[in-house]
Every structure is written in C-alpha cells, then in structure tokens.
C-alpha cells in the first residue's frame, strides 16, 4: 500500500522545481501514476511511505505538443491515448497508433504517459522501440539558481539498463523529441499472453519509406524490444534493406538477420521464431501502409 503525507500538483515547471527543492530527498514524481500504485504492493515494493508525491501531469509544458522543422516535440505527460486521437501526431509517428492500441488497455493509456514509460525503462516497454526508431531525444530540465537548465540526449543513451536511466535526482523529464516521419508506413508487432494488459515478450517497430514508384525502400527504421536488457535499433538490417528492391527474397533475408542476436533471459527459442515472423509481418505491413502495390503475393498472404 502506498501512503504519503502530502500530494502536490504544481501548475508550472517552476512550482515543480520549488516543491522538489523544498522536499529534497523526500518526494517521488508521479505523472500518470498507473505504475506507482501497483509498485507499492506486496510482491513488488510492498508497503511504501513516500512523504511527498509531486504530480507533474498538469504542468502545461509537459502537456504541449508541436511538430516543426521535421521534429515532433511532445511533453513528457502526453498520455499514450493521444497517439490514437491526435491525427497530426499519428501522421508524424506512423507506427505509434498500432503501438498505442497494444499498450496496456483503453483505460490505462488514457492516464499513462509517454514520459513515464520512458523513465520506467522497462526492457519490455512498448513505447521505447518506436521512439528509438524515430531517433528520439529526451529533454531533461533542472533548476539552476533562478534559471531552468536543460540538457538533451539520445533516448538510447538515456536508458542504461532495466529500470535504469541517466535522470539525475534533481531533474525532470520534460519532453521527448522525435523525427517527424510523415509519408512513412508504420507497423508495430507485439506478442504476449493475451491481448490487453500484457507485458511484451517481443515487440517490434517498423517504419518504411518507399520511392515514388513504390518499389524501392528509400528508408527503413527497425527497433526491437523484449529480446535483451534494453530495446535497440537493428541498424545492420536497415543498411541491408535501404536502397534495395522491396522483394520477398530480400525481406526474408532481412528477417533472418536479428534472429541470432536474441539475448533475453528466458524463452530464447520461442523469441527466435517470433522475431523471424515479426520481421516479415512488420516489414510487409509497414510497406503496405507506405503504399506498396506489388508485394510478392505469397508473402503477403502469409504475413499481412
């Protein structure tokens, strides 16, 4: 059971830092709070008393979203649901709607935030592979005297291991920025024990951009989660596919490439099978979403 003496909901970044300073060493930050209550239960952290909970979800900057100069900037408190109901966001991040629909359930994603998903740094976090595929950067802020100091670093550097990040004690994650990939086809594949509320055994984000004739892969982004301690980009597969024809033979070769790298703690054989299938299905689905007209019929029938 989680108990606290005070629950503070700052209305600005300045007020949040003031509260963090006043209650230094005695607070915990919450945003969506969807992982906070389950964390403080028997079997995880047990009974936890946090003197002060600071809720950052109502800070305007953490809820702002803008798309400019080829980048998406979204506040850390953006609920996952926005990827389903904000059409501009969905267009700029083409694999996110499918990621969102797999994320927890309809109710939790109305409350859970993208920033919380990143800061929790679960090896199986559904939000992370798509963000990595979008070259995501995290924007961190802290109070420096009367000013607010900010630093930016790539998401892949920010997450250092399961549950571990580079977030400093006095810092807040304020925003995540990403490549805006309008015109790409996106896909997100995930498998777990059931449809909703399930931790991914494997999840895969795929983004494909085709040439004007819809036959050559101009660009491709692939990121995978659940098969090792942190999600990562499959850059060798991207290099292999980029600039080449969209052919069944090449997609099948690409699908084999990451299979040997499965390094999860459990169920490696199963993950190899799944990864091979997901690579094909993800690439086919993303290519179709990008407007591919002529995919090998057999491949499409099997995986689309």
């Amino acid at each position, binding site marked *: 059971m989680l108990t606290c003496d005070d629950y503070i909901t700052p209305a600005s970044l300045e007020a949040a830092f003031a509260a963090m300073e006043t209650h230094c060493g005695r607070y915990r930050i919450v945003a969506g709070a969807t992982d906070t209550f389950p964390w403080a239960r028997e079997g995880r952290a047990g009974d936890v008393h946090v003197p002060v909970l600071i809720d950052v979800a109502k800070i305007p900057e953490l809820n702002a979203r803008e798309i400019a100069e080829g980048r998406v900037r979204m506040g850390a408190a953006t609920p996952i649901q926005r990827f389903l109901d904000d059409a501009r966001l969905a267009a700029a991040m083409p694999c996110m709607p499918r990621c969102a629909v797999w994320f927890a359930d309809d109710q939790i994603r109305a409350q859970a935030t993208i920033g919380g998903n990143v800061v929790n740094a679960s090896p199986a976090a559904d939000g992370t592979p798509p963000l990595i595929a979008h070259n995501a950067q995290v924007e961190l802020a802290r109070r420096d005297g009367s000013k607010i100091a900010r630093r930016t670093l790539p998401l892949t550097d920010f997450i250092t291991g399961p549950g571990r990040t580079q977030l400093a004690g006095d810092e807040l994650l304020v925003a995540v920025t990403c490549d805006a990939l309008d015109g790409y086809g996106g896909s997100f594949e995930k498998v777990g024990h059931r449809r909703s509320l399930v931790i991914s055994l494997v999840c895969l984000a795929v983004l494909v951009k085709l040439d004007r004739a819809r036959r050559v892969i101009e660009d491709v982004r692939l990121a995978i989660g659940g098969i090792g301690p942190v999600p990562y980009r499959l850059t060798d597969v991207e290099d292999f596919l980029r600039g080449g024809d969209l052919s069944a033979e090449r997609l099948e070769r690409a699908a084999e490439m990451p299979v040997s790298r499965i390094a999860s703690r459990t169920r490696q054989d199963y993950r190899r099978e799944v990864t091979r299938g997901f690579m094909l299905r993800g690439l*086919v689905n993303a290519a179709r979403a990008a407007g591919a007209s002529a995919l090998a019929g057999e491949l499409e029938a099997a995986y689309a």
Partner: protein
Amino acid sequence: MPDLRIEAVVNGRKVARAARPHQRLLDFVRDDLNLTGNKEGCGAGECGTCSVFVDGVLMKSCLMPVAKAQGANIETVEGLAQKGELTVLQKAFHKAGASQCGYCIPGMVMAATAALRANPHADREEIKERLGGNICRCTGYQKIFDAVEMARDVQNGRLPESALDEIDAGEGDYIGKNIRRIDAPSKVSGLLRYAGDMVMPGMLHVHVLRSPHAHAKIVSLDTSAAEAMDGVEGVITCDDVPGVDGFGVFVHDQPVMARGKVRYVGEAVAAVAAEDPLIARRAAEAIKVVYEPLPAVFTAEDALSVGAPVLHDYAPDNITTHIPIRVGDIETGFAESDLVIEENYSTQAIEHAYLEPEAGLGFVDHDGVVTIVSPDQNITHHRHMLAKIIAKPISKVRFIMSPVGGGFGGKEDMIYQGMLALLAMKTRRPVRLVFSREESIAVTAKRHPSKTTLRMGLTRDGRIRAVKFRMVCDGGAYGLSTEGVMRKAAILGAGPYTIPNLQMDTIGVYTNNTPSGAFRSFGALQTQFATETQLDIAAERLGLDPFEIRRINMMQAGSQTHTKQTLKSVSLGRCLDAAEQGSGWEKGAPSQRGDTRKDLNRDDVRPAVSLGARFAVNGKVSGKQQAAE
C-alpha cells in the same frame, strides 16, 4: 498529514469534502461517498472492476490518485441508471445472461458503455478489444459480447426494443429456455452489496498478521505494542479461542490462527481490529513474533519419504487421505491385454481468481448471537464448526451468506470467519475484513497439484481390460476438502467406462505449501486429464478413432460402476455424438488423418486473437495482427 479538499461532480451532484492525500479515486468513491457499485478486484489496474468515467473518459479508479480528480466530472456505475430505469446496455446484460456472479459486471457495463460511446457501430472484434481491460471469471465473455452487440443493435434501430424483453416461458416451463436471472438488475446497476461493500455503524477494520515462514515454531508472540496503539480496539491470537480450535471440511486440523507453529506462508498468526484500515495495518506490523524455522517439505513425494518433516502429529506419515478401490484382478487383466500403456501425468496448482476477494463482517447482535456475513459457500457446516470454536450453543451462532462474487469452490473453507467472530466478541463492535488480491492468492485453497501414474491394458479391438491408477496430490498444509477431492477422484477418475479389472489409489498428502481444496470438478479434472489422454494415446496405437474407442468402452444403462452403483440411464453416447458433430470431427485415428485437418479453421470456429479492429476498413482488419500464441 494535510488533507486535500476535493471538489468534484459525482453522478451529477456537487461533492466537496476532505480526502487523505494517499487516497485513490476508488477509495474516495467507495469509502467516503459510499458508492460501492464499482469494486476493488485487484488494486493493480488488472481487472477493471473499478472503472469509472472521469470527464467522460473511462479510467481505472484504483490507479488514480484522488487529487487527480480535483474539479472533475465523475460518473460511477450508479450514475448510469440514475432515474431508476436501466440503460439499454444494462438491460441487454440482463437479457443476455451476461451477469453471473456479478462482481465484474459494474466495471464491464462501464467499459461497454465507453466502447459504444467511442464507436456506436463497433463490431464484435472491436468490442472485445475495447473491453480488454476488464476481466470476468464466470462467463467466458461470450455472453458479455452478445449483450454489447444486442445493445448496439437496439441503439442503432437494427433490433426492436422488445428484443430486451423477457421471453414468456410459461408457468413452470423453464428447461431449455433463456430465463433471465432475477438478481441481474441489482448486479448490472451496481446496487447489490457484496460483503466488502457493506458497512455498519461503529464498524472496525480488520488486518491479519500472516506467517512469512513455510514451517516454523512460534517461540513467542507479543501483541502489547499493537494493543497500545491509538485506534486499536482489539488484537486476537489463538489464546482468544474459548472452545475447541479447529476447522476443515472433513478433518478439523486447522486452528483459527496458528497455534504453536505455522505450516505455510500466509497462515494467520494474529488479527487486529482498529478504527481504520491503515491503523489496523500498522498495528499488525507492530506485533512481535519470534519464529524458530523448522525443516519444511514442498512436494508430495518428499512428504511421503522416510524421515520427512511431519506437519501434524495425528498424521505421522503426512497422509491426509488414501482412497483405495479394487475391482477384479488387474494382473489377469493385463495378461489378457494386447496393448499395455503406462504414462505419467501431472497437473499444477490453480488459483480460482474469483473477482471478489474474500470479505466478511462479524457482529454480536442484541440477543448475543454471533453473526457472520460473508460470501461463504458452506454456511451450515461453518455455523456448526464455529459454535464449537467459540463454545456457544448453535442458537447463538448465525451465518448469513452474502452474494458470492465468484467462488468455484474457493470459498468453501472457513478461513477467516473465525477471526471475525472472535474480534466481534472481543471488541463488542461490528468488524469487517476485506482481503487484498495478494492475500487472497497467498492464503486460500488452490486446486490440488497432482502426479498420476496410469497403466492401461486393452485388447486389439479397443476394449479396456485393466487399469492401474495411482494419483498423489499435494494437499498443502491443512486438510480442507482434500478428503472429498480424493474420494471423488477415485469415484470418477477412471472415466465413464466399463473396466473389469481396476486398481485405483488416490492419495492426498500434507506439505508446507498453500492448502489445496475444492475447485470446480473436485478431483475429476486431474484424473480425467490422465484417463482421457491415455485413451487418445491408445486410440492412436490401435488405429482407432478417438470417439470410437470411447463408444466401445462406455458404460450403458444397467452398467455397474466400480463403486457398485447401478446406472439407470447413461447419456454418454448422445454426448459423444453431439461433440463429434459439433466439432466437425474428421473420422479416423489421429495418426491416419494426415497433415491437413479439415475440421480446423472453419468459418464457425472462433478466430485467433487479433488486434487493431478499430482500424478496420469494411470489417476487414488491415494488416492482420494475430497474436502468435
């Protein structure tokens, strides 16, 4: 701690009141506003019994700090049918038989309401997807989906409103008819109060201190610090039991709270009644127990081995029950057989996972009658046991069965009612205990894990000549229903087949695991898993169709079972015919039918799980996202 002042609109009414900063929206709505329609099934966002609308968006109120609801417009299940008239969806749940135990139903109705608000034309796949955050343990979901589709069609005018009316069954003519449940309106509206929803004036809250050890001697137990805490009204241990301390369905081997030693992790050691649940919790933590760990045993095999730790003095061999049945002579039967198969089968412990965690109230009424209100599946037996435990005449003990939010056998044991009685007697105030989900899983009975060795002899034409069946079950730390489960396993386990020579042994064993007890089918599942699997293996080896081998051996009207019951009628043949037809079964031995099964992947078979139905174009899910299960 500085209280928050929460101002919100709840079901159309303005609410302004203090709340404690750690409260969840669920606590605020249930405990402070007494709107108990939405439930707490898990407290971890997994089950959806707590789903409420916050500013029109469905949320899990067990995951939402109450401070987040500041200024919000909140709608609970009570808000749906506010004028007394059920909504179309609620009527459809009633009509379709979607509510059974009813505990998930308030959340399920809310999720269905949200789904049809989001898309009034949602198809069945999309409905499934949108209801994915809500769990039901009774229905298998099909009736729930039927209800949502029915409501959708009525709302869209594709079905007349009269589709929601009850079919007039005719006086006394109920068999084979869709009769609506009379308790459904109270369940779909959230008005039905389960034990954990009930409050009484002056009521105290109970928290139980539980054993962290699987097997340990209790060296000392000091409750003085807990008793001294403000707000604590009573602490009990086994020393507070005035009568004969022991309960169980067959053997009364379990004390109300541990006496002298603990035998499993989670066993009750002491209990506190206090003015609020948090004080009770803190007081339980303040109880000092010194344990001396004892060697423990965690498998039935180990418990049966020579020199194994003994759990109960009365059972030095650790055997709870052994049921032997002998018919004919198995050696002769095996000698007459053309094929003898011996295989080993095992099944695991299974949690019932009813949506309603255990809860109960205890009070002593104006006539001195000790009264227990709980979702108890066996109140008459419990009443008799409790009378002996608290040394009162039966006329001074009363059990009231509250609505059971799912039982499946898991609420047959008097696992906490004794503590409620003792605390009510000690404090002279009403007391209430509500289990957490974790507590419910850790403490209450599971399905018996089993290990079976089955030797079966058959003639070439598929007739069973002999069966030697030995099942050893892990009964856990206390007897509970183990004896009955072993008996029923021995009676039913060899299947509805004529077996001339049979040796059947079912053995329940004490271990330091969570006690095993009643669970749907009560011992038949474990044994029939072995028997039916073995028949499939035999069919394959003999080149027989699996249906045929069962028809060859099935009992007929007039057959005598191995426990000497003469059967007046047998419906197995009709049952097999219906299963064969319904499944589109392709005749032949499993080994003869080749790689392609025509009876699979038919249009009338439920499709694999898919996701993304809400992106569907013209009913076709683009980029079929099937889970690779």
